[in-house]
Each structure stands twice: as C-alpha cells, then as structure tokens.
C-alpha cells in the first residue's frame, strides 16, 4: 500500500482534551474518591493562635468519643514524624527552624496542627477533634514583614533572629556588568533616578480540589495517593525523611484538581497520614476542608520590593537595584526560600541594563508558610520592572512603549547574554509589540483617553503596558546545582510499543489539569505516525513512571516533551533494523515517514504497527536484536526557555467610586511553536485571569492577632467568568532554539505578564490626580482614596475584618476550635 496523501499533522491542531470528560464531570480517581477496606480517617486539631506555647493537650475526652481509634500529639509522635524538608537552602548559613509535622511544644502560626484524631469515619474524627482540649500560653507574634525583618518580635525565639537568609547577586561581582551604585550616583547628577517601594501581597493558590492523601501500608510497599504536583519528589523525601527505603514507597498522584504551585509541597498532612498508617497498619485518609486549605496550605508571593532605577536623560537605562524582603511564613517550605531567587534573573527582563544588583532577605514570621505560586519569583520581578519602566516613562513624559523600545534587546542581537548572566536564545520584542498595538487599537485608545481627560469625564481611561519575558522550563541541572537547589532539572520519558500497534507513553511530568495527555499524544502521533487516539499517556505513579521530576515552572513540554521526542526517535531507530530485516532491505535504504518504513525508490514498506507486532512475536528478528522497541530518554536542558510577549490593557476608572473595569486586554505572546492552540488558549486565558486577580481582587489578609481574615471565598475574592472580559489573544512565533520542537513554556506567561499591565493601566488613568501607585489589590476603596489623597496610593490600609455573612448571632453552641 502506498501513501498518497500527507496525513494531517497533529501538532498545531485544536484537539479537544482527552482528559476533559473525566475531569469536568469529576467521575474519576480523585484522591478523596478512593476508599479502601478498613480505612481510617483523620481530623486535625489546629492552633487558633499565631504563636503560642503548648502547655498541655488533654486528649482523654476525644479518645472516649465514638469510634475514635486514637488521638496523637506532636509529643506522642516525637522523632518518628521527622522534620519537613527544605530542598533549597539558598545560602550556606540559612536559618531554618526544624519543622515537625505536628507541632511539639510551640504553635508557630494560626492553623498549625497540634493534634490528630484517628477515627472510623471522617465525621467522627471531626466531632472528636472538637473535644481535644489544648492549653495554650499565647506568645507575641511576628506578623508584619518589615517589623519582623527588624527582629522586634521573634517568630522562633530560640533562633534569636527572624532573618533566614540574605541572597545577593551583583553584576560587578559576577563580572556580568557594572557597579549599580556608581550608575545611580551618576544619574543623580545628570540623569534620572526612579525610586519606588512596591508591595507584592500575599496570595492563596486556591486550587479547586482541596488536598487529600490516602496511605495504604498493607502491602510490601507503602502506597500513598496524594493530590500533589510532585509524586516523584514526594516519594524521595518521604523515604529520606522517614528512613523508609525508597523502593518500599510508591506515590500516586491520581487525577489532581489544580495546583498553581500550591501542590508543589511536601506537606505536614502527607507526613502525618504516612506515619499514622504505618503505626496503625491500616489505610488512612485525610482530606482537608476549604477552610483548612485557605489557612494552612502554603501561600504565595508576599514581598516588599525596594527598587531604584537609573537612566540617562534620554531614557537609556543605566542601572537597576532591587532590594527585597520576602515573607517565608513560619517555616522554610520545600522551595520557599528559593522562590524570590527565581526572580533574581528576571528583574532586568528584556532590557539592556549595564549594571544590576539584586538582593533578597528572607524573613520568618508567624503566618502560614509561603512557597511557589504560579510564576514563582518571576511575576514579582516582572511586576517590579514593568511598573518601574512605566514610572520612568512618566518621569520623562514619554510613551511607555517608547521607553521600552529604546532599551530592549533588538531581535538581531540574539543570542543575548543579560546583565544577570542568562543567555536568551531567541526573541522578537518588536514583532510582538507591533502586532499587539495593532490589535489593541493603541492610538485610538490614547486619543479617547485624552478626550476623557479634557472633558473631565467621571470615568477615566488608562492604558497599561507589560512587555514581559520569563525564564521557564526548570531547569538545567547544573544551574540548579550552582544555586544550591537540592535536585536536578532533567525529565524522563518512555515510549512503549504495544503488540497491537498502540503506544504507551510514560512521562515523569505530573499533570494536574494542564492537558499533557492530549498534547503529548499529539507529539507522539506525529513522531511515530500513529493515530492520536492510539497514544495513551501514563503519568503520576512512581511505579508506572519510575523516574521524573514532576510539573511546575512551565517545564512539562519544554523539558518533558523533549525527553519524549528523544525517546520516540530512539524507538524509530530501534525499529529500523527489524523493519529492514523483514523487508529484506538495507537499513540505510529505509525512510521513515508518516508511521511507515518505506524502501526508497520502491512501494515496499511496513507500518510501525506491523514492526511492533513482529517484534512482539519475535519469530523473525535479526540476530542479536532484542525483542523490544521500547525506549527511554532522560533529558537535561542546556538552558532555560524564554517566552516573551506584549500585553496591553485598558482600564476604566470610575472616579466617583474608585471602581475599576477592564475595557480591553490584548496579549501577543511569543511561545515558539504551538502544539495545541486550544490548550494554549486555555493556559493564556486562565493565566491572565490569575494575574489580573492579583492586581484587582485577591489578598490574604491577617489581622493584628495573626488570624487569617480572608479565610473563605467570601473575603478572598477569586474571580469568575462574570468578572472578566473576552481577551484578545494572539501570538508571534520565534521558535526556541534549545529544543527540537521549538516550543516555549506557556503555563505561567499570562500570570506573569498581566499583573503589571493592569496596575499600570489603573495608575495611568488617575496619574493626572497626582497618583503614581495604587497598592494591590487595587480595590475601589484604595483607588478612590488615591484619587482623593494623591501621591503613592498608599491607601494600603484596608480594615482587617471579614464580612460576617455566616455569623449566626442569637445562637449559642459555638463550637470550640472552629475555624475563625
């Protein structure tokens, strides 16, 4: 049979996601859907105090409650529970408090676990948890980040300081650029210096599926199912911390309902479930409530950014100095200390700064721990630089796009080594910006803005710009090593050819909503010439996918996808001699195209599926050839991956109320070649909304006793479709040069880029009233106060109180220990 028509390529097709039906209907294996015979349930008793000595815990009443198996405290568990790991000590002298999963003698944030009830049902466990009587002695709490950095009150008194680590990068020391202080001093004389302080508020990842863990200790291997992004890392750390052989631990991340970095963690709850299952010899489950998720799952961002940018009078930038304070919360989480360091290489962004200095002081406080949240370090950096470039433009009275263009790396200058020492392989900022301006109707909107200003329209218009880049595809192992990260950044893939011609693909990436099964099927379908439907992608089970480093940092496609391409290419080469043997041709005469080995110059040939069947039967293989086509590849990237784009946002500000309304949002992202445009559109839309939400709606707020005030979705405002507009999304395509498919990461791009675009637009609308900043989230109250008070929009002080819609006054029986 000869192939007459080129089959349609899968790459570039708008494939509906294979996983959608089961994920959207929920009829699938979420961790909480798993029920095992004899399974026990946990309920956590959590500290209501931000900082308190645990004087005594009386568990007698709770132990007597119906169907309670046991109640344990931190003291009871002692050494057995280990100490939760920090995989990224950013400096050799980092101060890292020990982190027992169940607090032993001191609770260090409101929400920390102090006791655990094990019962035969979840309801009985919860009921009994109310009966645990904890005697606390309240201690002063370190809450405010700036004050905590001054060691006024200690989060951990025995450590003697709240300062965990000071991490510094300086271009003069690194030899990648000049001395920033000299640049600033010079600009003070004959140039322009912009100095600002910005707040990156605390955010809650707010994934849809609360965290859940089931542990079955009854086999030879202990099996843990967990709603995690990182089954492989979790398995390694469970073994390392608890002293169990890694080979005796199997971790499964079944379908996982979102993470956004919030499930890039090894949690107290996972360790507790594991330890108790082993102790009791029975399967154990813990599923958190939404309230627990809000207060005790890790939070994101939370920085103060002190920024100094110097430029010449014509707008040419000469230096950028970045001094950060980063709130760790009460413990140094898995990669928490490293999150701001991921921003260290990105504050200089797409601009040609001759001198650059970055430093971050990480600080311990008595609040929930912080760690990765979509973008991790890079949104903070992008916000800082994109706000500052806009302020520079305002200071010089020029258009914010003009100032960017003057300073960005021109497309003919790639590859370009930045002042932070990274080599950007490719990019075309001019092309993305030109296309974005055209879509957006930039000049018309500027004209409308002018008209509204002149007419003193109560509704003013602002235009915000963000020309971002980011580094993703975490990461070259050598670079991670040089940054003292505890692991590498390679990824693994296996391609298994089944006898029936179907293909099983195994990836070490661990999808939790991204659509790997679909995109990876498309890649393999093209590579091996098999139908899309015939490819099955397996992941998230350390016994099925034994090697991997999981999913975060927009790495699955650019690192995991490359491993997959390489494994698939190995399969072809492994099949070639077998096909040649069966076709009685020379291997060199075979050409592999569209899933078929053809003998050049003839119509002879053999489909990959036929080779697979023949290999399975193994009746007639060449001498010395093993009867298997399966292949593995482990790929370690040589460089990061640098998507970029131009985002333009128009915001209307109602000057009478401070209400803001999005009018238009255009983004042109350059993410290289696109595997599945539909999935990319989903990532961009979702990413944008998440970044916009930081600008306008979301903030985790603590009151001055350390209670999380925004502890439910009544007060922590996650937007819905009703709050957003239709985005205008397009792409330019400058393929990455560091992977075969020419792809770049897209999982975080929208979130990284959109936040400053929105805030720049809000500030632009009201700059005429003397405003040069509005603190995030730009609530109507803050915007209104900024308009009326002018200046830095430091109407930062919102009242730290929740809206009490579910109070039930007039009624008694308010249970002890109920979440506040």
């Amino acid at each position: 049979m000869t192939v007459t028509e080129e089959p349609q390529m899968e790459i570039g097709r708008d494939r509906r996601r294979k996983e959608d039906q089961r994920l959207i209907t929920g009829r699938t294996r979420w961790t909480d859907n798993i029920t095992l015979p004899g399974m026990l349930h946990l309920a956590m008793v959590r500290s209501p105090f931000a900082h308190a000595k645990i004087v005594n815990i009386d568990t007698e009443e709770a132990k007597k409650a119906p169907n309670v198996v046991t109640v344990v405290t931190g003291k009871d568990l002692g050494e057995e529970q280990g100490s939760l790991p920090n995989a990224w000590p950013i400096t050799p002298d980092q101060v890292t408090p020990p982190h027992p999963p169940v607090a032993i003698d001191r609770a260090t944030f409101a929400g920390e676990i102090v006791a655990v009830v094990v019962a035969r049902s979840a309801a009985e466990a919860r009921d009994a948890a109310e009966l645990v009587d904890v005697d606390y002695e309240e201690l002063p709490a370190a809450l405010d980040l700036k004050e905590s950095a001054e060691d006024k009150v200690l989060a951990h008194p025995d450590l003697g300081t709240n300062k965990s680590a000071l991490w510094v990068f300086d271009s003069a020391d690194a030899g990648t650029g000049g001395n920033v202080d000299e640049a600033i001093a010079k600009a003070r004389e004959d140039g322009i210096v912009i100095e600002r302080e910005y707040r990156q508020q605390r955010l809650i990842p707010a994934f849809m599926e609360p965290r859940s863990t089931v542990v079955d200790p009854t086999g030879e291997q202990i099996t843990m199912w967990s709603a995690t992004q990182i089954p492989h890392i979790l398995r390694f750390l469970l073994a390392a911390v608890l002293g169990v052989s890694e080979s005796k631990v199997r971790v499964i991340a079944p379908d996982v309902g979102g993470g956004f970095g919030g499930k890039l963690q090894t949690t107290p709850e996972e360790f507790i479930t594991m330890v108790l299952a082993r102790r009791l010899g029975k399967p154990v489950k813990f599923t958190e409530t939404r309230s627990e998720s809000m207060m005790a799952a890790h939070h994101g961002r939370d920085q103060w950014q002190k920024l100094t940018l110097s430029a010449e009078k014509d707008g040419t930038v000469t230096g950028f100095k970045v001094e950060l304070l980063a709130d760790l919360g009460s413990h140094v989480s898995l990669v928490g200390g490293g999150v701001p360091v991921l921003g260290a290489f990105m504050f200089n962004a797409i601009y040609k700064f001759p001198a650059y200095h970055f430093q971050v002081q990480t600080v311990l406080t008595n609040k929930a721990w912080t760690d990765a949240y979509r973008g991790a370090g890079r949104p903070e950096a992008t916000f800082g630089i994109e706000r500052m470039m806009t302020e520079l433009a305002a200071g010089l009275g020029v258009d914010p796009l003009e100032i960017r263009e003057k300073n960005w790396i021109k497309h003919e200058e790639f590859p370009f080594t930045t002042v932070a020492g990274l080599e950007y392989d490719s990019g075309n900022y001019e092309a993305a910006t030109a296309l974005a301006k055209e879509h957006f109707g930039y000049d018309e909107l500027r004209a409308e803005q002018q008209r509204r200003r002149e007419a003193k329209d109560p509704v003013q218009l602002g235009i915000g710009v963000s020309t971002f880049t980011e580094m993703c595809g975490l990461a070259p192992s050598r670079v991670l090593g040089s940054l003292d990260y505890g692991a590498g950044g390679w990824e693994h893939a296996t391609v298994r050819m089944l006898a029936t011609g179907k293909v099983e693909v195994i990836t070490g990436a661990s999808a939790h909503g991204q659509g790997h099964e679909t995109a990876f099927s498309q890649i393999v379908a093209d590579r091996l010439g098999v139908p899309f439907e015939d490819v099955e992608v397996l992941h998230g089970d350390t016994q099925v996918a034994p090697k991997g480093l999981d999913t975060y940092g927009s790495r699955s496609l650019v690192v995991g996808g490359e491993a997959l391409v390489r494994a698939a290419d190995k399969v072809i080469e492994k099949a070639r001699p077998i096909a040649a043997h069966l076709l009685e041709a020379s291997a060199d005469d075979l050409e592999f195209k569209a899933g078929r080995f053809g003998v050049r110059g003839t119509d002879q040939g053999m489909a990959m599926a036929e080779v697979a069947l023949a290999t399975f039967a193994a009746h007639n293989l060449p001498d010395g050839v093993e009867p298997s086509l399966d292949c593995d590849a482990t790929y370690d990237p040589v460089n990061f991956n640098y998507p970029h784009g131009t985002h333009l946002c128009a915001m209307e500000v109602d000057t009478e109320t401070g209400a803001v309304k999005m009018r238009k949002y255009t983004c042109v992202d350059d993410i290289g070649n696109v595997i599945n445009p539909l999935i990319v559109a989903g990532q961009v839309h979702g990413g944008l909304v998440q970044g916009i939400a930081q600008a306008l709606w979301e903030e985790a707020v603590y009151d001055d006793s350390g209670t999380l005030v925004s502890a439910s979705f009544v007060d922590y405002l996650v937007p819905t479709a009703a709050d957003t507009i239709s985005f205008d999304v397009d792409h330019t395509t400058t393929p990455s040069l560091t992977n075969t498919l020419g792809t770049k990461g897209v999982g975080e791009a929208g979130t990284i880029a959109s936040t400053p675009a929105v805030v720049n637009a809000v500030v632009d609308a009201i700059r005429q009233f003397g405003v040069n900043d509005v603190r995030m989230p730009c609530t109507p109250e803050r915007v209104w106060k900024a308009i009326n008070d002018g200046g830095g929009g430091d109407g930062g002080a919102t009242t730290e109180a929740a809206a009490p819609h579910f109070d039930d006054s007039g009624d008694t029986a308010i249970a002890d220990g109920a979440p506040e």
Partner: protein
Amino acid sequence: MIPAQFDYLAPTTVEDALVALAEHGDDAKIIAGGQSLLPVLRMRLNAPEFVIDLGRIESLRGVTEDGDALVIGAMTTHSDVGTNPLVAEHAALITKAVEHLADAQVRHRGTFGGALAHADPAGDLGAPVLALDAEFVITGSGGERRVSAADFFEDFMTTAIGDDEILTSVRIPKHTGWGAHYEKFVRVAHQWPIVAVAATVRAEGGTIAEARIGLTNMGSTPLRATTVEQALVGQPATDEAVRRAAESAAEGTNPPSDLNGDADYRRHLATVLTRRAVLAAAGA
C-alpha cells in the same frame, strides 16, 4: 467540612412545623434553602440537634395577589421571585434586587423568607422590602401576626421572629407603575454588596412625586434614607437636583468597616449610589 450530627425533620404543614419547633425549642433550627444555614453548620459555628426543613410545606411557596398587596410565600425561591410577572409589575424593585443576588445556583436554592429571616444587613432583599413598606406575616402556635418592615429588622441578624415562630409570608403593598432600580456595588459579581441602594420612584412628568429608598449594608439592619426621600419630593429628575438630595443619603447610618472598605468610604458610596439609583429609577 462536616457539620455536627443532627436529626432532620421534614413536616408537611406549618402546624406540624410549629409543633416540632415548640417541642425542640432552642435545640432546633429551621432550614429553608440552606444557603446561609449550611455554611454555618459546616463551619461548626452552630450545632443544633434538630433541623426542621420547611421545604415540603407547599403552602409556603408562590406569589399571590391580595387586594392592594402581593403575598410572597416564605419558601419561594429567589429565582421564582425574580421571574414572577406579578412581582415585576407591582414590586419591580424586588425583581431588580433579585437579579443581582448571589449566583444562579444560590438563587435556585435560597428563599425569600430564608434570606429575610437571616437578616444579614448586607443581604439584597432587606432594603427593597423596607423601601416598599412590606409587612411580615409571622406564625406561631397562637396564630398569625403582622409586623411592619421597620419593626421586623431589630438588629444585626436579629428579627422579630420569636423562637417558636415561623415567617410564613411577606406582604408587599403594590407599587404599580413606580420606576425602580437596585444599585449594587461589588468588586466581584458573586459578592454580597459592599453597599447597595434600592430606590423606587413615582414620577409625574419629569418630576418626582414620591420616592422610597432603602440602604443595604449601611448599618446593623437595612435602613431607609428618609431625608433623601423627602428632599426628592417635587424635584425634577435631573442629575443636579437628585445629586443635591442624595448628599444626605448617609445621614444616620452606621456602616461596617471591613476588607472591602471602611465606614467613611461606604458613606461616600451611599451618596453616589443613591443618586445613580434614583436617576435610574426615575428613568432619567
């Protein structure tokens, strides 16, 4: 989260519900749509031993006319109230308020009576029923009594309904032909109002003959902006005239301070929103 254990009773008549209430008194809670009660139970802010469900009492559902009044059964869902043609014709203010109340899921479960009995000052129905001079029909073992809206809302989440009583219906005097507008100020669509203003206006020509204005979330109960109402009488429905009258909208209010705004900001909002609501209600 899992509520503490309770017994569930589902009477089919008001009489049976009252008997159950009398029997269990303090240990019982009524459930209507559950949209406020269930979160309370799930967060374990309350743990009643008995939950008495009014959902099977047919007589508590629906909207009827009774002379000059509309009678809205306590168990009529927000969504049924919002789409009811009688309500749209005679009490348009309520239709407008329900349109923006919570989201579609909550509107299909939550009830008119449940929301009013819950008496959250940020609830969207208090201000409209207060502005429309509604009467609350409360039933106890001794029979029915009627309480004016002004007396119904006693304090924060506290009403005139006694422990052994049930709110059975709400009577709304017909305001046929009145223009109406509910101006709700929120940050995200599914939120309770930060402040909202319910205005209904009878206009004659371009002049405001009568106006009724209710304020949401400006104190521990829904409030009437009576000074504004009076100032509007006889005024033209112009931006300037209404602006002047609306300036006193926050008079006598005691709004809360929370993450969405402090009390002063809310007072400011009340004046802006009152102007907008009145102008919209007057069709200006």
